[in-house]
């Protein structure tokens, strides 16, 4: 482990009493270990950030703290007292309040009704409503949490709805406030207002836990930060003593280097050309801010970056299914021909016909139909292929034969084509998807997170197949948050940050520190950072320790 590893325990202010202390918390969902032996200490009156990739186990950990799940093992101490949090009610009683990523508000209720729900003072509503009205007025004055108490939730902006959630927690006299990805739905101005509110709460002695995958927020507002990766707490440090780059590196992780034996690439003509690709989603947020790159035949282009910086959108656009309601501009050319960005010619089937294979980021949602059999899944996307059809009927026997062949060649276990996709392990599910896409011999293969939740053996296998495809003169676009994977597999590396390409590196030249900087939105090669950093992210340069 890197620099953060040796600070893993006990570093943040041990002097202050802990509002929350977790000892050895573990939680598994079936075979998935969501939390592994987690220790966490949150000092009273501090803002504590918990950062990690999607699926790192942050939300699970907080749900345990709020009584939604029972941990398999471990101990929870609130204000030094060991506590069993059996349900949300006991969490509330212990003074823990939670603001969920998806608000738990009743849309057609007024603010007041939402605030008193569950903590009414008696059987009749009138006295409770009157009391809550007074308390809300006081809270509004104290923390700048202004919301019209008689407005219904559906009339409020998301920023205001979030305030209602905070008010709900404060009305329940929460001393410890957990916010799960609070800025995901907010505009920058709303986010700034939220941070002002949080600072006000901290000044009043409240403890705040902020879950996020955005480095900017962590650096801006937290006192201490803990990093989670793959269900484990990998580091806890003082925010002032770390940097965005170090955190990015910790989040993404560097596991034992998997060496992929491969010959140097012999790139040919460009297969994919992307020019000035911009995308604005249906909420008006600019997700891609002018992306341009080429991929040549016989090379693997790796795109590194912390998730949520536009990689998903890029893959979706290239795959032919851009997010609904988004507006696109720019150009994509495949083998010299323009591909449409919208309209009838822009769909996944058409892209496949043109020779673009796609191993999507989330195999369980986009790659497979979990309740369908392996052989049916092998045909998906290519079910119009002549060899799968006989007249206007599907030739199920042919599909089965083909599926069994693919399962054999890709060593999918158990080798039972009639088994539902759900019943295979993550690695074997992924092999089914990889087999389907690679064996079609596409000119360009799009790959998103090929080895997420996949065991080591399958990772090696999948990597080998990707390299084989490259050696056969095909172009590969590899998007991964695993820096290792990118470093060992890619022939060229682009780093994405906030919808832009921050820089390009060659794998044998790049260091993780260098890439970590790019992933945090800082270009270390630039001598005058003011020019390189977009105005919206200028704060990054104010970070302590960053100049080092």
């Amino acid at each position, binding site marked *: 482990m890197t620099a953060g590893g040796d600070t893993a325990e006990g570093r943040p202010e041990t002097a202050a009493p802990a509002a929350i202390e977790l000892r050895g918390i573990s939680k598994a969902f079936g075979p998935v270990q969501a939390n592994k032996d987690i220790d966490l200490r949150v000092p009273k009156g501090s803002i504590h950030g918990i950062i990690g990739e999607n699926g790192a186990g942050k939300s699970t950990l907080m749900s345990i703290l709020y009584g939604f799940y029972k941990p398999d093992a471990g101990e929870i101490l609130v204000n030094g007292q060991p506590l069993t949090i059996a*349900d949300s009610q006991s969490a509330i009683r212990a003074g823990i309040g*939670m603001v969920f990523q998806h608000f738990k*508000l009743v849309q057609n*209720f007024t603010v007041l009704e939402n605030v008193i*729900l569950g903590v009414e003072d008696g059987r009749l509503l009138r006295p409770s409503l009157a009391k809550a009205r007074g308390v809300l007025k006081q809270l509004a004055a104290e923390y700048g949490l202004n919301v019209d108490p008689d407005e219904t939730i559906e009339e409020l902006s998301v920023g205001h709805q979030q305030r209602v959630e905070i008010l709900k927690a404060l009305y329940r006299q929460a001393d410890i406030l957990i916010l799960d990805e609070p800025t995901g739905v907010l505009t920058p101005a709303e986010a700034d207002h939220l941070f002002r509110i949080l600072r006000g709460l901290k000044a009043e002695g409240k403890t705040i836990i902020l879950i996020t995958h955005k480095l900017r927020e962590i650096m801006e507002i937290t006192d201490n930060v803990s990093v989670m990766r793959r269900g484990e707490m990998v580091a806890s440090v003082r925010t002032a003593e770390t940097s965005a780059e170090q955190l990015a590196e910790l989040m993404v992780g560097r596991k034992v280097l998997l060496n992929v034996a491969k010959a140097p690439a012999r790139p040919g003509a460009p297969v994919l050309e992307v020019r000035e690709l911009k995308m604005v989603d249906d909420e008006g947020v600019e997700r891609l801010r002018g992306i341009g790159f080429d991929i040549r035949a016989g090379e693997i282009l790796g795109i590194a970056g912390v998730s949520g910086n536009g990689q998903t959108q890029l893959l979706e656009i290239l795959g032919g299914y851009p997010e609904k309601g988004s507006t696109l501009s720019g150009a994509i050319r495949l083998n010299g021909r323009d591909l449409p960005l919208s309209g009838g010619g822009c769909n996944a089937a058409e892209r496949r016909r043109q020779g673009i294979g796609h191993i999507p980021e989330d195999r369980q949602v986009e790659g497979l139909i979990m309740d369908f059999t392996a052989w049916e899944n092998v045909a998906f996307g290519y079910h119009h292929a002549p060899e799968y059809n006989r007249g206007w009927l599907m030739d199920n026997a042919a599909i089965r034969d083909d599926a069994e062949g693919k399962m054999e060649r890709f060593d999918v276990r158990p080798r039972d084509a009639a088994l539902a996709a759900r019943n295979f392990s993550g690695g074997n599910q992924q092999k089914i998807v990889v087999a389907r896409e690679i064996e079609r011999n596409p000119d360009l293969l799009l790959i998103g997170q090929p080895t997420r939740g996949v065991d080591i053996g399958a990772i090696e296998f999948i990597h080998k197949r990707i390299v084989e495809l490259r050696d056969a003169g095909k172009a590969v676009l590899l998007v991964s948050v695993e820096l290792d994977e990118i470093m060992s597999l890619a022939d060229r590396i682009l780093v994405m940050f906030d919808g832009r390409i921050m820089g390009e590196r060659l794998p044998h030249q790049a260091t993780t520190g260098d890439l970590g900087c790019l992933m945090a939105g800082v270009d270390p090669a630039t001598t005058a950072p003011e020019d390189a950093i977009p105005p919206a992210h200028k704060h990054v340069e104010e970070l302590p320790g960053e100049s080092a």
Partner: protein
Amino acid sequence: MDFATVIQILDSAVRLMTPLLLACLAGLYSERSGVFDIGLEGKMLMAAFTAASVAYATGSAWLGLIAGVAGSMALSLVHGLSSITFRGNQLISGVAINFLASGLTVLLGQKIFGLGGRTPSLTGAGRFPEIQLPFAAALRDVPVIGPIYAELISGHTILVYVAFLMVPLTWWVLFRTRFGLRLRAVGENPASVDTAGVSVTRLRYAAIAICGLLCGLAGAYLATGLSAGFVKEMTAGRGFIALAALIFAKWRPWSALGATFLFGLLEAIANRYPNLDLGIVTIPSMFMNALPYILTVIILAGFVGRAIPPRAGGEPYVKER
């Protein structure tokens, strides 16, 4: 059409709307809590049968009423188990309850009484008597107010008054009490109730219990108030008409009163004028009798403006990760 006729039709409408109103309010509690219930019909039918049977056996309409409520609540419990505890499909559970009630009432009726699915006619204390309100006789001859009071308002069975009192009571419970707030919340967003530390399951069971109770009253009224005994399929789709009225009323109690009155009135007019003579054309009785059902179709097809059902309706609650 003279004044006396109008009063008579309205009086008839009141009697005919009572089971609809009770069933409609029953559905209101259930659906407001997020449990769709197309089994109102079956519950009413079961209640009508058990009420008539027990009333005949004991000679007491009151014991019949209790049996009716028990029969209906038993089916409510089945619905609760399948749709709340076991998170089954609420529509399928409701359909099953309708079939079960339809078959079971006839089977048991035939087995016990041997009258082809009917129960023997109820007489005397086996039926609910009509209640004469005070001064009804004395005021009868006062012009206008007299007939309205004596004919329209007075002279109904106890269940009619209960049904009408349930309207303001339901309104008060829904919008003025803690239970009502939580009930409405659980039908809109059960996660909000769950995260507030209140049991979604318990709230929904409470709601369907009230639903069972009210359906029981409706069924008992059909068999021991409106008629004198149980007849095969005697609910004749009233459970579905009540559902249509519930949508028409947009899940609000006072509107439910208005909607069910409309249905009751149509039925009363059809009964009074089997062949409505409009001078040029005569509307045949079949059409008149079909009117409530035609109105139901129109309402369900959404011709009466947008009705937004409780947002969490029909969905079993599963905690998300």
